[in-house]
């Protein structure tokens, strides 16, 4: 069957929707699509503690958002401001997850601690101290 004929027929197209399996030939062996998520990356107690603290920081940022409602003069300004708020809220968890996935095992602890310091809900702290 020519390619043109094949393009006009449905048979076999269901296979195109399937996820490729891990032993799917050259692509898996090339390393280009080797998923980091399948590597064994034990977190240990510090990792879970960092996750709990990151969740707490996220809650803190949500409190900051609700405590400081802001009006913007334009729709674009409002959309961008709310996008910034969303990013600020997810930042602690995003940092934790990126360290969990990307950092070498021996360097994860300092990166997690740095993330907890950097992404802490500082506006809340400043408001309490004021």
């Amino acid at each position: 069957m020519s390619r043109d004929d094949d393009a006009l027929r449905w048979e076999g197209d269901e296979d195109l929707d399937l996820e490729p399996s891990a032993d799917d030939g050259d692509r898996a062996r090339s390393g280009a699509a080797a998923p980091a998520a399948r590597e064994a990356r034990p977190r240990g107690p510090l990792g879970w503690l960092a996750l709990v603290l990151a969740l707490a920081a996220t809650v803190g940022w949500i409190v900051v958002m609700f405590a400081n409602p802001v009006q913007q003069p334009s729709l674009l300004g409002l959309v961008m401001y709310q996008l910034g708020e969303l990013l600020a809220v997810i930042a602690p968890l995003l940092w934790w997850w990126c360290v969990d996935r990307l950092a070498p095992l021996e360097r994860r602890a300092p990166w997690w601690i740095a993330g907890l310091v950097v992404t802490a809900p500082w506006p809340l702290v400043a408001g309490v101290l004021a």
Partner: protein
Amino acid sequence: MSARQPHEERPGDAWIVALLFALAFGYDTVEAVTNLQQLPLLYASAGIEASTPWWLLIASVALPAVLFALSLWIGRRMRLVGKAGVMLVALAVSAQASLLAEQLARQIAVAALGG
């Protein structure tokens, strides 16, 4: 020459992703420059121009570029997804810093008006 696999990264992909994030960081910088222009006028209109937090306004202008450069440096040996993840974290930290600057500017104004 073998055909390129669909999931294989091209060298230019990292630059395209970096350019897209540069636009986002650029927006943060533009916002900070606007604040640098407008906030002193607001403080002056309230009669508290002496309390204008210049250090905060200037730091707010510089921070997005610093964070973008840091994210490029940290992700320089990572694959594309890792680079994008690091830049997204840096953008999120930039957003947090903007909100912190806003809170500090508000508190400084309140303290100046109250004092």
